[in-house]
């Protein structure tokens, strides 16, 4: 590691927000990378230059992470070379790449700083770390320098707030500001809108457009076609470790998606069915907060209802409340016609109410090297008391249930005993669904079931959810596109309460993906 010459803080450049960036030109030739017997990348040619926003699509396991890791210096390529501004480029660490102006911003933006540090301190972490800030730091100097950084990148950031308290959108901007303060010329963003509401995403898009106009190159990794449609000048699709095809504007997204998943897209939007089953869940005048709007809705057997709406509107809270993981503030809930006061997840499960929580790693999985970290154990966990009433586990029984789920949902895993952390995101999510369908509930609650799930697995999951004609399903998703792919009925939850989204109108939206159905 080479260290930068130590400069006094007051000499830091303080350019205006319209500062232009020396355009980068980065090319990869014939890259290949193997992990053991797995070919992660092969024969990849790729280039990006200043002022360009290039989208990168690929199913989970297609090699996106590997490509990003090679470009950003986190992994060396086995074969092939990188050419930066006409010279061979061999970064041996992410630090090397950052010094060359290539900064990758991780999807988990909570890693962009640390709770307990203010936003201002977070912006200056790199200077603390490389010694540019000097040994003693005064709060006044921190504020001054942080304001200079925020001004130079043109962001309006809450500098005095604790990093742990700001929202995902601000964390994203902090991460970008840190990258720009480190003189980034190529920004690599990984699913940056995953946890942003629509308005926040739009703000991010405007910022990214502005950065590209200033000469920055942006590599934008996303599953979301609407993001790429809005932003990308060009989209490269990875499949099986190769760049399967590159699409130029106007980008033909249906073909891009079919290229990504390697099979024709059989109509992503599902037909709405009119539910005739008995009402399973009836909610009236339910309040999630003391001064929140009253919510009224019901879900019938065999019906899939999606609740969408901005982040923070209370979608997760609604599901957790119905599951007994949050207290009911006020209101009336009826399950199969009988009054139902959910007091705990255990009580909810006993009554046939199942919840697959948001972020499967946090809400469903045990670490892989811990007992319970296998596919079969993950599926069995909520059902142990039912399957093993005498208390003693029998692995044959667990395996049988896991085999059922693997077959039914098409889970790609080494078998029932495979560790969860060896599965791709889509297959992990199928395991979570398999868990909650292993014993069929009356009411299935799914919170963001398509997070980090590629298009192919998404269709499988949607089909598996819709196939249960006796189950009432309620799904929370912040992505209306996802709602259209699975739900019979869509409700929008915002600060004013719930209102139905007219499905027909939604279907008629100009949307090449839907038009093919």
């Amino acid at each position, binding site marked *: 590691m080479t260290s930068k010459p130590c400069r006094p803080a007051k000499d830091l450049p303080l350019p205006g927000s319209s500062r232009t960036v020396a355009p980068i030109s980065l090319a990869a030739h014939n890259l290949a990378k193997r*992990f*053991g*017997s*797995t070919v*992660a990348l092969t024969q990849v040619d790729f280039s990006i230059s200043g002022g360009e926003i290039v989208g990168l699509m690929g199913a*989970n*396991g297609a*090699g*996106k*992470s*590997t490509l990003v*890791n090679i470009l950003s210096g986190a992994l060396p390529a086995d074969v092939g070379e990188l050419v930066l501004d006409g010279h061979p480029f061999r970064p041996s660490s992410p630090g090397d790449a950052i010094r060359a102006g290539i900064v990758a911003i991780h*999807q988990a933006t909570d890693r962009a700083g640390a709770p307990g540090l203010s936003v201002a301190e977070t912006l200056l972490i790199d200077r603390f770390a490389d010694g540019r800030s000097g040994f003693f730091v005064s709060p006044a100097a921190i504020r001054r320098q942080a304001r200079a950084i925020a001004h130079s990148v043109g962001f309006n950031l809450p500098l005095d707030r604790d990093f742990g308290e700001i929202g995902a959108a601000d964390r994203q901007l902090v991460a970008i500001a840190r990258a720009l303060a480190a003189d980034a010329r190529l920004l690599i963003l*990984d*699913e940056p809108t995953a946890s942003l509401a629509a308005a926040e995403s739009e703000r991010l898009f405007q910022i990214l457009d502005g950065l590209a106009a200033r000469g920055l190159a942006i590599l934008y*990794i996303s599953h979301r076609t609407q993001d790429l449609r809005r932003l990308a000048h060009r989209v490269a699709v990875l499949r099986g470790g190769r760049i399967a095809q590159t699409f130029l504007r106007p980008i033909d997204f249906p073909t891009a998606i079919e290229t990504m998943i390697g099979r024709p897209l059989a109509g992503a939007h599902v037909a709405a069915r009119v539910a005739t089953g008995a009402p399973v869940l009836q909610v009236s005048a339910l309040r999630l907060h003391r001064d929140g709007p009253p919510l009224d809705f019901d879900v019938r057997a065999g019906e899939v209802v999606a609740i969408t709406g901005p982040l923070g509107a209370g979608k997760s809270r609604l599901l957790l409340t119905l*599951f007994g*993981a949050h207290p009911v503030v006020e209101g009336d809930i009826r399950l199969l016609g009988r009054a139902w006061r959910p007091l*705990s*997840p*255990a009580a*909810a*499960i*006993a009554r046939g109410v199942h*919840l697959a*929580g948001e972020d499967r790693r*946090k*809400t*469903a*999985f*045990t*670490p892989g*090297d*811990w*007992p*319970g*970290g296998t596919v079969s*154990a993950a599926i069995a*966990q*909520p059902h*142990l*008391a039912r399957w*093993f009433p005498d*208390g*003693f*586990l029998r692995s044959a029984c667990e395996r049988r249930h896991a085999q059922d789920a693997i077959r039914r949902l098409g889970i790609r*895993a*080494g078998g029932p005993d*495979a*560790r969860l*952390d*060896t*599965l*791709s*995101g889509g297959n992990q999510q199928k395991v979570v669904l398999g*868990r909650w369908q292993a014993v069929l509930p009356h009411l299935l609650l799914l919170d963001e079931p398509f997070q*980090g799930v590629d298009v192919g697995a998404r269709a499988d999951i949607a089909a598996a959810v819709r196939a249960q004609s006796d189950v009432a399903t309620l799904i929370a998703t912040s992505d209306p596109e996802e709602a259209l792919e699975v739900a019979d009925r869509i409700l929008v939850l915002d600060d004013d309460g719930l209102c139905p989204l007219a499905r027909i109108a939604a279907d008629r939206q100009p949307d090449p993906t839907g038009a093919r159905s």
Partner: protein
Amino acid sequence: MTVVSQASPPSLSGRHALLRRLPAFLRRGAVFLLLAILATAFALAEPAFLGLANFMSVLQAVAVVAILAVGVTVSMAVGGFDLSVGAVAASSVMTASYAMVVWRLGVVETVALTLLFGVAVGLLNALLIVRVGVPDLLATLAVNFLLTGLQLIPTAGRSIATGLILPSGRSANGVFDPAFLAIGRSRLFDIAPIPVLLMLAIGIIVFVLTERTRIGRLMFAVGGNEIAARLAGANTSRLRTLAYLISATLASLGGVIVAARVGRGDISSGASLLLDSVAASLIGFAVLAARRPNVFGSVVGAIFVGVLLNGLTMLNVPYYTQDFVKGAVLVGALGLTYGLGRRPA
């Protein structure tokens, strides 16, 4: 986004496959391999080492540590760490001795009272950790401190033996019942000491509980991801309470054995028990490359340390090097587990 590595390795030629598996095999068997090497070396240097009598004396020496280590392991399974076991065992020695010598209780009453004391401490730990929300390390360390002091108060800091002068000036003239002493001193069929049998029984029972039952699976689920366990319907508070109850009760059983073996209430009897049992549980992480708390590994870890110390003692290595040796084993085992055992990401 994660890079997914294929779970099934390609078929390799036989010899190649063996070579490939060798490092993993060595890692899994490292503790046993070392144990075999040590035993061979000690046996060559001192033939008496290999006798059944010596083997039993090794097991007798580690029985209490192993029982405490099993308890610590259970607390680790729920993601906690019971640092109060040393003080629980030590104050249980005092409780049992006080019951015999001062209150002149019978064997059954004494043992029951001492185990009840353990249950009470377990409930206190659980109250602090589960209800009040004190982090487990801090709560049990504080209780460790509390009990270390508490055990001195009834006898004004004196050890308990027949003829003890109480703070009131009265002298206590009860005696240790021979039936009580038998718990620590007698042998089944003149071969297997009772403490060793207790160690084996507890090892097997708690192994089955943690590895083969619903309760054990749920305990590990709590330790692995408490939120996920709760959302899967597990009563996480009850499971954590149960774990601290088990560890404190086992620690008080360890105290009963120490009291029965020593035959007096020695105020310094539990001094090294905490560190020794924690070390055994941590060495257990390396056994079969488990990289997690496991009962089998903890018992093996305790025995491993016992064999090492026994052999070194036979070779006349000075007693004051013992803690250094234990520390070196622990550092080596943890380095082995986490360093060499690192899986490719």
